[in-house]
């Protein structure tokens, strides 16, 4: 009753005040809601902000990520260099891809300079490798700045980051005419390879500290490879000899999405954008089919409708791994070091170790030059479509075929004499050190 009286006796002004409070509350609530929609903070629901990423708790994620960048770059690299070299021939309709096989790459060409890891038809080259190298170096630097307390298993992560940085540098050093790192000056291949050697040394030290044999062997093969490139044969042999013959470290692939696919397989099997070069078809060893280079006639033409597709059975499925480092390669490196040291027998033994492994007839040997030629032949077969051939063509000065000036079949233009990848314009013009200038 009292309450009723109070309500009943409430003056109009007081009742208005009640409504006024309600309005104020509603208005305040509206403002609060408005704040939700008028916020000028940029939402990024599908992106990771850099400021949130480089923290010790993300160390494993960052190392996993840089390995992922490398694996993608490697597959792109094998196709790109396979086309420029003599492992693959072009079979696609997109003119953007013809310059690889035609050997007419110029620094302004977009495909090789800015093509990304997501390219499935026309492979990228400079950008995927550079990203893989830079992300590896960046997490390597970060890991070195963090402590073991902050990052569990830090030495093993350092070893991985350094090894993958080294391999990115190897790819760049072995195939480019020149390159740049972190916006720095234009480097010769030798300078890039020297950087690679330093990364592998760091990886070896960290792997030993972490007792990680896998990365240790990977880094030893890598350092042996780069030391052979730098003609440090004795040191290369020391690294390579310590790697077991059965050792292999692969890049992994899967059918999860285009970026994860084994691009070599995609090109030869699904997209039909490339075909295996005739020089790798029907290879034998003294009449015995060479199982290391098993290439079959697919019975179909490529995407261009005219180029017969020959496939390498080495990568039968989209998720077939690709070797990054192996004992097989180590043996070949040992052989090369032996030849350099005048140990022809050692080189022949190394070749035969691999032939025996592949159940192929034994190689009888010959003069030093003959054995060297045979070693080059063994390398192109053993390391077929693993991203090694372009380096051999460059360093052994292997003649290009067809000759420069020959009409590029079916699609127009003439073969050029390109062999190494020039520093792309996108690097030269936007690198703050180069600033458009030639070195």
């Amino acid at each position, binding site marked *: 009753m009292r309450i009723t009286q109070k309500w009943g006796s409430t003056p109009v002004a007081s009742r208005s005040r009640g409504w006024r409070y309600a309005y104020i509350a509603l208005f305040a609530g509206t403002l609060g809601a408005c704040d939700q929609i008028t916020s000028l903070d940029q939402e990024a629901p599908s992106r990771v902000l850099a400021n949130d990423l480089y923290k010790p708790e993300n160390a494993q994620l960052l190392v996993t990520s840089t390995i*992922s960048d490398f694996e993608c770059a490697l597959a792109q690299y094998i196709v790109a260099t396979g086309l420029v070299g003599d492992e693959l021939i072009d079979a696609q309709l997109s003119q953007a891809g013809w310059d690889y096989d035609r050997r007419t790459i110029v620094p302004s060409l977009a495909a090789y300079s800015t093509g990304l890891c997501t390219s499935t038809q026309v492979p990228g080259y400079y950008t995927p490798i*550079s990203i893989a190298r830079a992300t590896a170096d960046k997490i390597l630097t970060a890991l070195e700045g963090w402590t073991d307390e902050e990052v569990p298993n830090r030495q093993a992560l350092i070893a991985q980051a350094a090894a993958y940085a080294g391999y990115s540098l190897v790819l760049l050093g072995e195939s480019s005419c020149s390159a740049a790192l972190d916006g720095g000056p234009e480097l010769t291949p030798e300078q890039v390879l020297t950087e690679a050697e330093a990364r592998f040394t760091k990886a070896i030290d960290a792997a030993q500290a972490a007792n990680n044999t896998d990365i240790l062997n990977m880094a030893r093969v890598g350092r042996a490879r780069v030391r052979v490139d730098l003609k440090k044969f004795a040191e290369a042999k020391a690294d390579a000899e310590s790697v077991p013959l059965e050792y292999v470290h692969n890049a992994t692939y899967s059918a999860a999405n285009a970026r994860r696919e084994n691009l070599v397989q995609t090109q030869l099997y699904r997209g039909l954008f490339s075909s295996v070069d005739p020089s790798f078809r029907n290879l034998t060893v003294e009449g015995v089919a060479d199982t290391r280079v098993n290439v079959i006639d697919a019975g179909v033409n490529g995407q261009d409708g005219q180029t017969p597709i020959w496939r390498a059975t080495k990568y039968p499925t989209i998720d077939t791994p690709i070797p990054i480092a192996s004992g097989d390669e180590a043996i070949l490196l040992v052989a090369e070091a032996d030849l350099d040291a005048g140990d022809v027998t050692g080189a022949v033994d190394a070749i035969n170790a691999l032939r025996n492994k592949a159940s192929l007839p034994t190689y009888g040997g010959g003069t030093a030059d003959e054995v060297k030629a045979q070693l080059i032949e063994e390398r192109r077969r053993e390391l077929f479509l693993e991203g090694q051939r372009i380096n051999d063509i460059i360093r052994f000065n292997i003649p290009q075929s067809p000759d420069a000036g020959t009409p590029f079949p079916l699609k127009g233009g003439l073969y050029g004499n390109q062999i190494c990848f020039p520093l792309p314009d996108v690097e030269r013009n936007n690198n703050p050190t180069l600033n458009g200038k030639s070195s």
Partner: protein
Amino acid sequence: MRQETGQIRARTASALASPRGWCSTAITALLLVASATPLLAQQPSRAVSGTVVSAATLTPIQGADVRVQGSETGVLTDVSGRFRIADVGADQVTIVVRRIRFQPITQTVRAGTTDLRLAMTEATVQLDEVVVTGTTVGTQQRSIGNSVASISAAQELERSAVPDVGNLINARAAGVIVTSGSGRAGSGTGIAIRGRSTISLNQQPLLYIDGVRVANDVATGTRAQGGAGVARLNDIAPEDIESIEIIKGPAAATIYGTEASNGVIQVITKRGRASDKARWGLSLRQGTSWFQDPEGRLPTNYGKTATGEILSWNAMEMEKARGFDIWKNGRMQSYTGSVSGGTNLAQYYVSSTYDTDKGIEPNNYLDRFSGNANINMTPSPKIDVNARVGYVTGTTHLGSDYGLGAMAGTLYGSPLLAQAVPLTRGYGFNVPPEVVWAVVDNSQELNRFTGSLTFNHRPTSWFTQRFIAGLDQTSEDNQNLNNFVPTQWKPLFSPSAAKGSLLQDTRAITYASGDYSGTAKFNLTSGLVSNTSIGGQYYRKKTRLGQVTGREFPAPGLKTAAAAAIRDGQQDFIVNTTIGLYAQEQLGWNDRLFLTGAVRVDNNSAFGEDFDFATYPKVAATWVISEEPFWKLGFINTLKLRSAYGVSGLQPDVFTALRTFQPITGTGDQAAVTPQLIGNPDLKPERGTELEVGFDAMAFNRLSLEFTYFNKKTKDAILLRPVAPSLGFPGSQYVNIGEVSNHGLEARATLQALTRDNFSWEITGNVGTTKDKIENLGGIPFISLFPPVQRHVQGYPIGGFWAKRVTSATLDANGKAQDLQCDGGPGAAPMPCAAAPVVFLGTITPKATGAVANTFTFWKQLSLYALVDFKNGNKILDANEYARCAALSVCEVNVRPEKYDPRYVANAQNGSSLVIADEFIHDASFAMLREVSATYSLPEKYARYARATRASFTLAGRNLHRWTGFKGLDPESRSLLTTSSITPAANPFQSTFDQAVTPTLAQFIATLNLTF
């Protein structure tokens, strides 16, 4: 949005201001009606009735004030242009007709005349016309310091039969460059106002419908082979538009804020008017389109066999022999119905349009339905409310071009291919036309709702405020469907491709906006008037993106990703928010001299975190000098001098300020990230500063003239500077280091060349020039674009053409070009091409654009009209010639080089990388007989046979003849780049090359308009 003359406005306002005013008006009307009947019965009628039409288009003019000279008696014309004055008060009187935008007319008539037909001619200089400027109320032309282009859409539509809004704008506004993509049904246009002023950002203007910001993306659709050609501007049915106003640059667009540097297009839709009964309108359009002279425009291709035999191949001849026409005539149909009317308290306009078009290829067609309702209410004298809803739904099947289409196959075919793979019949890229049509379907399904609610409130006599709430909801389903290939064509595809695939990009854009503005008007002294405006806007654009891919269908007829063997997908959303405030003060002295100052402040979520907000000032002045007492030049009836200086902005893209990593599937299929954007925390909007001066004049009561000079500078220009890959990031970085200048002239004139009772001749013309130059590129030597012959270079136009230019060469005995000498650059002697630099070859932006139109009207019933438009001074890469002669080697120059200039041979033999390429870059200047039409407006007595109050019939031809020195297929067509996976490219019209794009098509269109 337009208002009537001062008298009408005053009368309406006073009527609205007082309930007694309504009452007395109504009673008077009733008395008039009541008294009229016996009067008519007793003596001859002294009524006069008739129709007011546009002299140029013969379309009815609604809202014209028709009155007896020297009397208060007057009426407004209805939606059909009809009027009736019940008693003119004398046996013979002089009728005066006035309407904004038209020159007043007078005519002596006898009382009792019932079929009077009055034709008004449009005037371009109307100082009392009210235009939309962004503040609360419209602003009179006399007080605006900048040029505002205005297009009378309803009238232009009828005589031009344009299919879409982009073409409605084309050639009708000085300095507004409309660029077409392709001739395919449903493909859209790009618009650049006053040329180019941004290097890396989108150059499209903002789009408003009835004051509400809406999406204006160009080149939407699938990114596959020419599938991205649909422009959101064309979602608006031209039939629903009353007028279009174009605000051209920063000087005018300051209070539109941080995205308005490219100008603003205001679309004002049709509204209902009070009338005694509902007015029904019906418009039927039927037309056909065709590819003019394909035999004469498509080249013959060649090939040399291993034995040296030269073979030729011509698709048109080959198919003619087979009795097969590659391109059929297209068909266009459009049906529009509308009803409008209302009372003084509420008016309505409701319309619906159905379009169904077929292109010249079977996989190019569209069906579109749109509905539009506009309701105005005046619940109290102080408040009026407008509500508009628009909806459009339909599907556009664009077909395919570029590298997978009938055009590509025809242009790039080869006799050698015909021999090697007979199934291809020699068509380029192995695909005969019928195979493309059977396999490829690029489509966009659209559902778009646009709604707005506008409150106008006049709480006092001196203060007016307005609030607009708007929502634009666009939903696109873009699909590139490659059907399961029929068995007979499978050999032309890889096994995987033959099973088909689907790429679906869905995009839903929600554009929400709120706009408040208030204006206070004070008379400071007897002659000095102050208008003070304040306002604030809020825009929020949320874009939801989805992408699904499916490859390899197990059987024919399957069309979804769910039915594909290999599937992939991703989803994302992007939000961008802008908040802005402005204040403007305008002082007017004796309604002749006006001074305006304004400032706007904006913040946007795309700005870098180290940048706070953008401030844009503006000042403008106008002087109607012809109204000064000292004005003695009687032959100049009107002269307004104007000048404006203002600043506006152009915001960077969302996320471009942030350094981000993209989540990916990593090694071992683990979660991982990879570098995505390098970002820039200092990123801020581009700042466009513009000064424009000019005048509007009317001379001899028959010549209207507008003239404008503008000088625009873009500072802090955002450059899309490619990132050096060695830094570990892909793509580009947006940086504020550039500066661009752009200046030009604009003129528009209308001349009533001859005006007689039964004949009139009107000439209209407009011309705009523009010259852009990159003043500063931040020390970057150049930025390459795609195609690589386009570059941004300091001191030269945006995106200009650059290549090595061969100055001399010789041919050896085998026809190989040798001793190549190239242009050594400015001031340098020719040098061997290997060492020569690339040199500037021309600009991509037309230096001059414009149009001339002539209209002849006979007996106020028949109108003949022709419009020629032109673009001049720009160049284009003829990618067809490049691809045929330098990349694919199927030109005659490739097999018979001795017949050609050695310099051209040098290009053909060395141009595959587009470095030596000067012979493929051509002047794209042209003039086009764009529109020609005859409109006959039936006399009312015949219209009545169809129970109509008005009937008109128009036969129009479009794109019928082109004058050009360009030797390629079409100087207008463009391959539109879609650089991003699921969002339209920022600047798709900056790439200027034509690669196997369906050219502009000729059209004949017949239109019947009926009003009931």
